[in-house]
């Protein structure tokens, strides 16, 4: 009785809380738009010499402030943090000790090795499968259905995807009825004692990568499919007249024509992989030898409160991202120029 009443009260209070929050959001959105409009109207009345500087300030000012406060200054401060000790305030200067630790500590070397494996396996497979589907689906009648289904994981959060796959990898004692699809399949195939997938190192790393591939293949497929469709028809026709069909057409005409798009897709997935956090966090929490840089950076900072080491790991992610992104952008420009 009492428990039911209590539950009813908490339900009611969370509901009013939620209603209040929605109200708050509507109010904030309305006030925000009203302020922007008011500033526009007021600043629009300015004339003479202040008109131009005022225009530039109003249009560009908010973005510049957001970028400075949100990205530039924090990035510089993280660099400085990475040269200091563990505590967030008044930590002593330690030089490159945090970086030395990152590259020499045994557990950290495992983290770096895992990240490197992720960086190679997941993007290459996602791009390759995405390419195969993009080429194959081009002639199919049920194109839209196939594409939507392959693309669907992109809409699901990495957390959602992780739960989906954690369930596939679920382990039960082989004597009991299975709940995990993977165990059920291998038992049906005759492997009677499947391992506990999630804790089997180093296999578990690849099982986690499957989740990333599952999500990113759709992305690769969509971009590559657009690139293949953009190849002029007369090029394909000319190749067909020359006798290039099927695999030969694919290898010697389609692939070279979409080369820069392939690189863009590959590097984009690589950058996403470098920063992957959600999958590792949700499925293993970085245990069983599956830790990666981004998850470790979070753990070092917000679980162990070792700000210096966390910052050093963040800087390592940054240093790894820069060349990939620069290459990505160069290729992207090349691709735009050829279209």
């Amino acid at each position, binding site marked *: 009785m009492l428990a039911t009443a209590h539950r009813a009260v908490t339900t009611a209070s*969370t509901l009013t809380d939620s209603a209040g*929050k*929605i109200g708050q959001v509507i109010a904030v959105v309305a006030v*925000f*738009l009203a302020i*922007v409009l008011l500033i526009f*109207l007021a600043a*629009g009345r300015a004339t003479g010499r202040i008109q*131009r500087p005022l225009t530039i300030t109003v*249009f*560009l000012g908010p*973005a*510049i402030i*957001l*970028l400075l*406060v*949100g990205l*530039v200054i*924090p*990035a510089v401060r993280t660099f400085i943090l990475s040269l200091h000790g563990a505590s967030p305030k008044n930590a002593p200067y330690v030089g490159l000790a945090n970086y030395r630790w990152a590259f020499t500590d045994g557990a950290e070397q495992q983290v770096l090795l895992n990240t490197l494996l992720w960086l190679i396996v997941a993007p290459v497979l996602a791009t390759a*499968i995405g390419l195969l*589907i993009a080429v*194959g*689906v081009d*002639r199919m009648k049920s194109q839209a*259905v196939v594409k*939507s289904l*392959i693309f669907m994981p992109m*809409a*699901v959060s*990495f*957390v*959602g995807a992780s*739960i989906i796959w954690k*369930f*596939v990898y679920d382990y039960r004692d082989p004597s009991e009825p*299975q*709940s*995990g699809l993977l165990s*059920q399949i291998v038992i049906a195939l005759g492997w009677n004692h499947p391992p506990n997938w999630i804790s089997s190192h180093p296999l578990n790393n690849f099982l986690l990568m499957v989740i990333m591939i*599952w999500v990113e293949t759709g*992305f690769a497929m969509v*971009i590559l499919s657009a690139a293949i469709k953009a190849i002029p028809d007369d090029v394909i026709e000319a190749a067909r007249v020359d*006798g290039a069909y*099927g*695999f030969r057409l694919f290898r010697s005409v389609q692939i070279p024509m979409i080369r820069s798009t392939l690189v863009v897709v590959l590097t984009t997935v690589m*950058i996403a992989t470098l*920063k992957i*956090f959600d999958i590792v*966090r*949700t499925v293993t929490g970085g245990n069983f030898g599956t830790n990666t840089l*981004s998850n470790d950076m*979070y753990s070092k*900072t*917000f679980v162990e409160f070792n700000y210096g080491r*966390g910052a050093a790991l963040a*800087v390592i*992610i940054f240093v790894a*991202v820069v060349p990939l*992104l620069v290459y990505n952008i160069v290729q992207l420009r090349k691709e735009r120029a050829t279209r």
Partner: protein
Amino acid sequence: MSATIEVEATPVVRRGGKAEIRRAFSSRLASFAIILLTILWTIPTFGLLVTSVRPGSDVSKSGWWTIFEHPHFTWDNYHQVLFVGGFGVTGGIIPYLVNSLAITIPATLFSLVFAAMAAYCLAWVKFRGSDVVFFVIFALQVIPLQLSLVPLLRLFNDGAHIGGVPIFPDLNLGGTLYQVWIPHTMFAMPLAIFLLHNFIAQLPRDLMEAARVDGANHFRIFRTIVLPLITPALASFAIFEFLWVWNDLLVALTFGGGSPKALPITGRLAQLVGQYGSRWQLLTAGAFVAMIIPLIVFFALQRYFVRGLLAGSVKG
């Protein structure tokens, strides 16, 4: 003469015929492979969906694929996950679902408005150094989120001081929605400005000049000419940003973590994985609840989303 032609012609025909067969075969094989792959891609999600409507007692005793032999469905899991909690979990996930909406909508709107304004300024209000500013903003995409999390969190929690003099007040934002909106808006800026700039810069010059001649100032041009014209680009980016913010976990945990007041559903799900453990019927129901809104947005507006992706999509 005719013999040579015949000799030449026969193999061509034969080769063509063989290629024809091989082509038909390979295209059928390829279609089959792709359908197989599509099924493979969909099965895990299907398993999640099926499990979320099976009674808990069934889930602990058998795999979801047995549902075809013993169909038995229930909505109890959804009721429990949404409103009740249970198994040491207090309360349902409804408040977190509301948090997700309350975080995503303003964060998307703020970044769109500020980015569109900045992009317009950089494209049409040329000033000395505007190209440099654009390039620097573009280049800021190289900064990964991870690099700015800690200092930004400390700025929000402690304010900023130089020699004891506060230059940035302690806003006391800890655990509120503001603390999640603002970082999302900040992190969206470089990509949003870049994409919208590409679009805005391509608007016809004549149109802008005609409006200037008519005496319209930039504020008026932006509101009455630019905004309506760039609606498709805004829609693409809005969907992109909506999905990105809704599905984000890192920013959510860092800036909204610890407080149910500002923790979105992704963050809650990550907690529930530990708390519900192997009660898969509840976990799968929770995961589906978190997925349903982005899935609706995605399938309803897929075309815009794809267009946004094609425009370039390095983010975070």
